């Protein structure tokens, strides 16, 4: 069927802030959908609160609403735009849940909006556990024994039939939040209670445990003519019991015969038909009993998912794009396969390589939480790698993680006692694969390792082969051969070739042989061992590929034929992590788009499958490769670009800049030497002295003996951090000598190679972020952002406002002058971000990053100028003048950026905000009124501000004066106040009614009792340095669990109170970006 002409305007809902379980992949899918539908001539209305997405770029939709993704806000958009259809399947669980809410409440019917892709009954059937189970039984498929519980009593009644261990899955929660495996009744009761409270419909699926079974996924697509195809099959290396998002996975399936695979395929087709997903992609998970082959269905997502993004990148088949086209009426056979150009999209991709996906976690930022991997997802990002064999792909994948591994390395703790080792194998954990290596090296048999891990022996055997090869290297004997590199020594040449075929990196060999990586590279080249590039073509070379999407593998033939065009290579940001995520991918994508318009051939290098940058049509050539010096140099030598951009991918490419430059790679934009000047403490001091700017008093220490006198001369509190970090990793405010000692000795293990920076902490200073662009002659401010929280909270974790809402013109002028001077002094070509602190009318420079910052997309959307695009063109030689960006824009409206935290995934972790970044994503609120903009941002974060109710206030002594105004305003607005003793006394004296609660351990009721009784709607609780921490942590923890907005700074609380006031005064309205930018 050709496309539908009865609909013209389509509403697409995005997935909002990046959170665990919902990351860049939905920007990738949403962007593809917007592009595909716009191409077909439809008008696109988009709602997404995440400014760092490509999809919210104003040219991707006709009307772009950066507004909270909640049913009431989306209803306002529907009312204003009157779309004909709503496509709910491309914005993750968030979009699906909101769409269901709009359908169930009758809003869609009221405005005559048709759900396309998946209808309400289909979504309900797939998402509701009981309906899904029934549907599976109706078509004769097995599901694990299970039952539904809405109360603890119901859950206890079920357990007799199901037995332990049992899996608890709350309905409608993201990434299985609140789910888990219970091995005994006590654990079971606890998990049931948590699960019930987390499920928005208070429903749990209690399920027979199939822990240890093999886990598989199929990505299925269906069109309106009922054609169904399987795009990709995925096998999880980690068996059932570990969330697929936390599992190492492999595509395609490795250990099923065709007979078994076809049974699974038949089931998948039956399932998508029975559930009734009209068109589009679905992800279906199966478990297989390794002893009998019995297959059971685990679950189905009636929408595009994280695995769909992986499947798209793994096969070259653009699932989201095709899903969008199917939703408007096309059939699969009417859509061409972009990769081959000559065959239709109605087929099943076949691949001739192995794809491995490895998750990346951030437990180091959430100390105190249980690090066991369970059915609840905890990873914050993932790397994908493509290789000719599983071994090669695995090693490439491990080095793609950028966590320090150069491949399948030895675990630093490989000598741990056997008893400990076996528990490391049994209990799934982040480094289990490396413990497997330790076990293999100690001679533990594959059977034994299997009995601990239940990882299929096929994978264990492949790991064993890597270990065996390492042994066969005979390093002491072959070291001279590596040092000399004689190409005539065919035996050694073949040994080194074999190493490369097994995926060993130069770095790994350099570690094993204890020679420099440069030496390994040199010898390898002398021996004539070069990597080769192959094409990802959806068809295993059966047809010629039109699309240049490449991966490296050590083989005999290289398929890449570089063109003689002028090329620019863009280095991406690798796997998402806290502090480096979608914002940097956004910048890389912009660079590719801008440079393409300027006539350059663009080459993208990245290893993150969730991203838009790794879409085959974002750049002219895509290399899906690890971002290591070796891999990047190989591509450079192949393609010989005239310039390489390192300032858009966050810290990842910056860390490579020096080595690349030394190897002769032309880095364009700000030079690596100037970048180093900004990052090296001593050099940077010289820069600041030269232009006469101030820094907070500071120094550098390489041991605790050095640190203690430094800190006492600076005066506590001080901020301590290791040099060269991103996202404030291991950065802390230290109030005293003893914690400083602990920090120096344990947290960072300071040494002369790893000095620790110590800064005087400016208490209660206003922090300001400035993003700026310079072409070397002209410097133009992109945006000045005033943080709401005081300096000391990491800029990524702070709310901020553009333009500044309390700074005066003089201060703003001064900030601009300082920024121009810094840009000039550092010879910036492209983007720079400066963080300032303003205290007692003095402006201090906290940090300068001569690269694209996390706030570039936010600023670009706030001012309506694509800064990253301009910067890329400047780096390639254009002037700002020629690009028409010469004056600063101060928008007549306010944009507020607010962070979103993953604390609900990490119970037990310290959730207090500080200089170490902990947020996973951000949202934006825009309004002509700053308080309404703040309210929108809060709402978009998932913390709807209450309009009435009880406010609990407990502040440190220092804040007692400033909290009076806030408390007064709350009572004026009709709130009841609850406070602990000290705060209550102050409020009473100032004429307010206060209910007194006891501090914990001093009497009842405490605030915990109130929270448990749902009698608290808002919390203002400022931390008291390091004392009373436990009490505060408990309050924060409970607030997170009960979804109560909590403000831990006075400025934050003030902003919230003003926002509540604004909300009480009038309804929120919605306005598209295109209207703001007019």
């Amino acid at each position, binding site marked *: 069927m050709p496309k539908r002409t009865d609909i013209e305007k389509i509403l697409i809902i995005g997935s909002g802030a990046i959170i665990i379980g919902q990351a860049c992949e939905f920007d990738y899918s949403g962007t593809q959908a917007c592009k595909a539908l716009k191409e077909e001539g439809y008008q696109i209305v988009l709602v997404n609160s995440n400014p760092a997405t490509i999809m919210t770029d104003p040219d991707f939709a006709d009307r772009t609403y950066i507004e909270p993704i909640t049913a009431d806000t989306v209803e306002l958009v529907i009312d204003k735009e009157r779309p004909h259809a709503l496509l709910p399947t491309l914005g993750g669980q968030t979009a699906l849940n909101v769409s269901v809410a709009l359908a169930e409440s009758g809003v869609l019917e009221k405005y005559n909006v048709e759900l396309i892709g998946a209808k309400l009954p289909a979504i309900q059937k797939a998402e509701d556990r009981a309906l899904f189970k029934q549907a599976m039984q109706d078509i004769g498929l097995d599901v694990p024994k299970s039952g539904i519980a809405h109360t603890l009593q119901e859950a206890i009644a079920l357990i007799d039939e199901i037995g332990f261990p049992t899996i608890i899955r709350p309905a409608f929660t993201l990434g299985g939040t609140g789910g888990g495996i219970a091995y005994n009744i006590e654990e079971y009761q606890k998990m049931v209670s948590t699960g019930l409270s987390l499920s928005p419909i208070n429903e749990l699926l209690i399920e027979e445990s199939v822990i240890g079974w093999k886990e598989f996924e199929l990505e299925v697509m269906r069109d309106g*003519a*009922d*054609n169904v*195809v*399987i795009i990709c*099959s995925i096998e999880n290396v980690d068996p059932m019991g570990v969330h697929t998002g936390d599992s190492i996975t492999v595509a*395609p*399936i*490795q*250990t*099923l*015969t*065709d*007979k*078994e*695979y*076809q*049974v699974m*395929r*038949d089931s998948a087709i039956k399932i998508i038909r029975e559930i009734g997903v009209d068109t589009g992609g679905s992800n279906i998970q199966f478990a297989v009993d*390794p*002893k*009998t*082959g019995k297959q059971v269905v685990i679950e189905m997502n009636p929408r595009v998912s994280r695995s769909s993004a992986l499947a798209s990148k793994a096969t070259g088949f653009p699932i989201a794009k095709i899903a969008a086209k199917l939703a408007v009426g096309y*059939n*699969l*056979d009417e859509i061409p396969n972009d990769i081959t150009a*000559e*065959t*239709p999209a*109605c*087929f*099943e*991709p*076949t*691949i*001739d*390589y*192995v794809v491995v996906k490895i998750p990346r976690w951030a437990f180091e930022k959430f100390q105190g939480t249980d690090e066991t991997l369970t059915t609840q997802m905890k990873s914050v990002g993932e790397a994908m790698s493509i290789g*000719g*064999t*599983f071994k090669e792909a695995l090693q490439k994948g491990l080095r793609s993680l950028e966590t320090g591994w150069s491949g399948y390395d030895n675990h630093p703790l490989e000598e741990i006692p056997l008893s400990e080792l076996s528990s490391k194998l049994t209990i799934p954990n982040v480094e289990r694969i490396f413990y497997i290596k330790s076990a293999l090296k100690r001679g533990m048999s*594959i059977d034994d390792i299997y009995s601990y891990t239940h990882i*299929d*022996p*096929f994978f264990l*055997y*492949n790991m064993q082969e890597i270990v065996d090869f390492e042994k066969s290297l005979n390093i002491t004997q072959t070291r001279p051969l590596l040092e000399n590199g004689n190409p005539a020594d065919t035996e050694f040449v073949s040994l080194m070739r074999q190493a490369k*075929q097994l995926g060993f990196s130069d770095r790994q060999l350099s570690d094993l042989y204890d020679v420099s990586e440069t030496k390994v590279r040199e010898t390898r080249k002398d021996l004539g061992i070069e990597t080769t590039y*192959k094409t990802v073509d959806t*068809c*295993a*070379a*059966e*047809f*010629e590929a039109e699309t240049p999407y490449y991966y490296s593998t050590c*083989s*005999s*033939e290289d*398929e890449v034929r570089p063109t003689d065009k002028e090329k620019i290579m863009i280095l991406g940001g690798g796997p998402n992590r806290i502090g480096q995520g979608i914002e940097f991918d956004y910048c890389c994508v912009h660079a590719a788009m801008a440079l393409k318009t300027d006539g350059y051939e663009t080459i993208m290098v990245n290893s993150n499958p969730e991203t838009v940058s790794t879409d085959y049509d974002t750049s002219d050539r895509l290399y899906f490769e690890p971002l290591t010096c070796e891999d990047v140099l190989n591509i450079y030598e192949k393609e010989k670009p005239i310039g390489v951009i390192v300032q858009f991918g966050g810290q990842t490419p910056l860390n490579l800049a020096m080595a690349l430059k030394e190897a002769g790679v032309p880095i364009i934009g700000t030079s690596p030497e100037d970048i180093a000047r900004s990052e090296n403490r001593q050099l940077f001091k010289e820069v600041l002295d030269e232009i006469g700017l101030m820094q907070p008093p500071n120094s550098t220490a390489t041991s605790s003996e050095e640190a203690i006198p430094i800190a006492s001369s600076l005066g506590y509190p001080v901020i301590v951090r290791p040099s060269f970090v991103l996202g404030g990793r291991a950065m802390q405010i230290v109030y005293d000598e003893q914690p400083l000692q602990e920090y120096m000795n344990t947290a960072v293990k300071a040494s002369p190679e790893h000095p620790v920076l110590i800064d005087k902490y400016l208490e209660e200073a206003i922090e300001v972020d400035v993003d700026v662009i310079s072409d070397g002659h002209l410097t133009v401010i992109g945006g000045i952002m005033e943080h709401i929280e005081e300096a000391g909270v990491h800029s990524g974790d702070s709310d901020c406002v553009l333009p500044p809402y309390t700074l005066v013109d003089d201060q703003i002028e001064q900030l601009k002058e300082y920024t121009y001077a810094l840009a000039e002094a550092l010879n910036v070509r492209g983007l720079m971000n400066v963080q300032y602190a303003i205290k007692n009318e003095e402006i201090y420079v906290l940090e300068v990053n001569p690269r694209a910052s996390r706030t570039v997309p936010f600023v670009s959307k706030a001012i309506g100028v694509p800064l990253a695009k301009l910067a890329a063109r400047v780096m390639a030689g254009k002037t700002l003048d020629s690009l028409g960006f010469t004056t600063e824009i101060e928008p007549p409206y306010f944009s507020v950026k607010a962070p979103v935290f993953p604390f609900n995934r990490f119970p037990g972790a310290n959730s207090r905000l500080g200089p170490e970044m902990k947020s996973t994503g951000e949202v934006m609120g825009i309004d002509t009124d700053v308080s309404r903009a703040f309210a929108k941002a809060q709402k978009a974060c998932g913390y709807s501000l209450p309009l009435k109710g009880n406010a609990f206030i407990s502040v440190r002594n220092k804040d007692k004066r400033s909290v009076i105004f806030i408390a007064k305003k709350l009572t004026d607005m009709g709130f009841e106040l609850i406070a602990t003793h000290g705060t209550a006394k102050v409020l009473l004296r100032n004429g307010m009614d206060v209910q007194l609660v006891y501090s914990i351990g001093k009497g009842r009721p405490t605030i915990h009792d109130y929270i448990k009784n749902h009698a608290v709607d808002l919390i203002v609780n400022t931390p008291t340095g390091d004392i009373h921490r436990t009490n505060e942590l408990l309050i924060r923890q409970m607030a997170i669990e009960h979804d109560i907005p909590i403000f831990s700074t006075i400025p934050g609380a003030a902003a919230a109170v003003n926002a509540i006031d604004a909300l009480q005064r009038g309804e929120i309205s919605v306005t598209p970006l295109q209207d703001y930018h007019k």
Partner: protein
Amino acid sequence: MKAILALSDGTVFEGQQFGATGETVGEVVFNTSMTGYQEVLTDPSYKGQIVTMTYPLIGNYGCNETDIESIGPQVEGFVVREYSAYHSNWRSKWSLDTYLTENGIIGIQNIDTRALTRRLRVQGVMNGCLATEDTDGNIDVASLVAKAQSWHGLVGWDLVQRVTCPNTYAWNQHPSSSIDGYKDSTPSENGKYRVVAMDFGIKYNILRQLTEHGCEVQVVPAKTTAEEILAAEPDGVFLSNGPGDPEPLDYAINTVQELLGRKPIFGICLGHQLMGLALGGKTYKLKFGHRGANQPVKHLATDQVEITSQNHGFCVDIDSMPNTVDITHINLNDNTLEGIHHREYPAFSVQYHPEASPGPHDARYLFSQFTKMMGE
């Protein structure tokens, strides 16, 4: 042990041996299926061919007693990127190495199979010679190239005689096991239809499917005459798949011509080509054939697309079809002919493999179509 695959254009791939040792010649072809190597190995249609799997890891799940399509491996040689010595599957009985060794099939691994595939795609399939080193560790590469060049190739050669059954037999085997997923297909009445299956190299799964659909099957040698077949008084005649060029099989073409209109006929693959030739059409050799499990075929009557399993190097010319037949199926990748149905006679055939094995089960309805035809 070293092994070499030499192509007739002089290209030489050096790798390691697995399976048997020795020397073999054949037409070098590639299969893009990611699963089902044991079914591929045992498919008689690969007689005369050295098969390359484009999927790089082969042997992962071993070999077993049931996933076979004939009495044993039929290929002349087997080419993979990485042979997995470890086999992991609850049904696995032997490693692929053991399986090939015991059946005398030479395997070569650790070569750039994608480079080989691209060469075959661009140049067309070509003859090759696969050999392992001798006891002194030598291989004469030049002689292998010469052997590849001097080999006669498939065109004009009656390969069916190498795979057809020597004598008529009754197929008694029921669907191999519940694992193949056929247990839930249409419930059937055993032996409701009597079918004579002409064996040109028939795959067991066709026989399993016919049985599953209620047929009692007599398998007869390829040279069985129409008279002999009619004497058995079947309800229908099945024309099987098989290896090589259909044109030299004049005896079979004659038989089909004589049977047309007298008994319901269903043909698959080579059977389809024979039907095409019997109806006056022409066949030709494809540049590199269709071998894999992901070929999209459009069923013109319903507009639905089936993902099909295919294995053929020859093809019926779509333009040569007389107007006595309807084109029922076409290949969406290259618009070649995939299925025909006679307008007057109860006879139809498809180029692809509805019995799958390996491959998707999308086209299983064709067996019901056959029984329905016999029922009318």
